[in-house]
């Protein structure tokens, strides 16, 4: 019984981890390569979720929803970069915080005007709403398993893209030293725009997959944004590999901490103390982890800039 629970929670943690990775992968490059503090990345998650949910409701087919939402998120990222973001690269961090904060307010409110303040719910397709036995007598929702698979496939694709292709080499060079990369004749403006749009698209995919698991509502991306910032800091800004490892760690620590920390505390303290401190400590756990990492490795575990 306990083993089943632990296994199930590990899978939940993995699922949270790969979702976080999808949000963090683009953001770590935006922060690392463009040195741009982009707080509105959570809005991309929301746009993806809304696009998928709305199209699914209109067409009645979950997969059409996903298929159409992916280009929509890519286009929204591309346009956002073209219209606003590219004017902000040379500004200092504080102004970037302010401008992207304005973007968050705008997107949340625009969604509220367009779709109403209430949450959208999208049903799972019948093919994915069943359970899979990951071990004998240990059923696990097929959809969550699918999310893990999609996340891992995306991670592998990003890894191959960044480490094996020519554009990937440009991206790595850009993360290491943007000025030098531009001096070598690489069109850094186009590179930035494509990275930005791809990042938005990945965050959108995370949102689409989260749609059926959580409620699709204005501001839904912000908790994910904050957690993915934690992931990026732990992994080292600009490092996709670091983001992947840190995302899995954060996903597992957060999920397992919330479930098991109260009972672990009960072993050492009285019931009342443990029940009071458990949830508090569990929700602070990832931030404590980040603070500890920063104290010992002030540039994260896998810093990209050398």
């Amino acid at each position, binding site marked *: 019984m306990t083993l089943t629970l632990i296994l199930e929670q590990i899978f939940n943690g993995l699922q949270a981890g790969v979702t976080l990775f999808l949000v963090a992968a683009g953001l770590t490059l935006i922060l690392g390569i463009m040195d741009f503090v982009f707080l509105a990345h959570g809005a991309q998650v929301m746009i993806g979720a809304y696009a998928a949910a709305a199209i699914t409701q209109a067409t009645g087919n979950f997969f059409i929803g996903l298929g159409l939402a992916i280009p929509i998120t890519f286009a929204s990222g591309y346009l956002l970069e073209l219209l606003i973001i590219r004017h*902000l690269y040379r500004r200092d961090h504080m102004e970037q915080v302010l401008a992207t904060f304005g973007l968050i307010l705008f997107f949340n409110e625009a969604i509220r005007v367009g779709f109403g303040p209430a949450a959208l719910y999208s049903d799972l397709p019948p093919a994915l709403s069943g359970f899979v036995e990951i071990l004998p007598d240990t059923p696990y929702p097929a959809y969550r398993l699918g999310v893990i698979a999609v996340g891992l496939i995306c991670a592998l694709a990003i890894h191959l893209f960044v480490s094996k292709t020519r554009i990937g080499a440009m991206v790595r060079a850009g993360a290491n030293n943007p000025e030098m990369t531009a001096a070598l004749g690489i069109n850094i403006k186009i590179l930035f725009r494509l990275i930005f749009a791809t990042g938005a698209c990945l965050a959108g995919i995370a949102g689409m997959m989260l749609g059926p698991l959580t409620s699709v509502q204005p501001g839904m991306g912000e908790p994910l944004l904050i957690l993915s910032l*934690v992931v990026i800091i732990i992994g080292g800004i600009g490092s996709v590999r670091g983001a992947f490892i840190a995302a899995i760690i954060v996903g597992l620590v957060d999920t397992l901490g919330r479930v098991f920390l109260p009972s672990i505390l009960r072993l050492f303290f009285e019931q009342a103390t443990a029940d009071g401190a458990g949830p508090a400590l569990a929700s602070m756990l990832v931030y404590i982890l980040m603070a500890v990492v920063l104290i010992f490795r002030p540039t994260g575990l896998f810093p990209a800039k050398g």
Partner: protein
Amino acid sequence: MTGLFHFANLVRAGIRDNALLWMLIAGFALFPIFTHFADLPFWNDVAMRIMLLGMAAMGLNLVLGYGGMVSFGHAAFIGIGAYCVGISQFFGMTNGLFHMFLSIGVCGALGLVIGYLALRTTGIYFIMITLAFAQMLFFLFVSLEQFGGDDGMSIDRADFLVIDLYEPLRLYFLIWVALALVALGLMFIVRSRFGVTLRAIKSNESRVEAMGLVPLHFKITSYVISAVICGLAGTLFASWQEYVSPDIMHWTRSGEIMIIIILGGLGTLAGPLLGAIVFLLLEEFLPLALGAVAPAYAENWMILFGPLLIMVVLFGRGGLIGLLDKAGFARIGKRKMAVK
């Protein structure tokens, strides 16, 4: 010689900044007379909120504007200050002065710890670690069920010996006195050797280090001072709102204070207060303006406010003070803008 000229320039610029600051503060002292005769008592409430957020923004500005450290977690100190009142009352301590000293002590200690840890990093890492500490405290208070958790706790206005804060305008002038004291303190800090060193660190840290000073000490000290000012604003905020919940330290509030500073003018004394006035007036009037044009969407005023912020960043460098400069009404911002 140029150094001397620069110094003279600095003093002159400082005086102008101070003049604007004290004009605004004097305006707040006279404002209740206006609301009394115009019969608009609601606006006293708005003015109190402006003064409180302005005070917090002035505190953060010491770190952000003068020290160049982008702290994205100062709402946590406002929240801690407010919870100092709530938790003391929970245990039966109703004395307002006690709340203030407690808040100063707790926020100072917390500012020292967070500042010491966070200032090991710079740039984006610093922004993020300050955000992380604020989130940590936010979730701590969300899960503290005995103090209301998510729902928060209601608070009585603090008890200040002879002053009954439930009498009209008593709270208003308590906040006003606190604001004036904070402004006075900051004015001396900014002009002092400490303040000049802090600005020097912002423009070139290694040079300050080469002069034999330890930049970290100055940075941590300024971080603690700003934490204490935000905590003080928080304790008064609790009395004003008569309620405290973790919402007070939500990360969007840290963004809000930052917006106020940048809107007003970074690294100036009057800027944060001016920014608070404009920010809260926008919050009051944008819904009305939007409601007049499209009544169904009056609640969605953020849809205008968001793009407005982006416009301020894209086109209005130097904030409102910068605009006053360009229009020839003040001579404050130019020197600051030249530093960057």
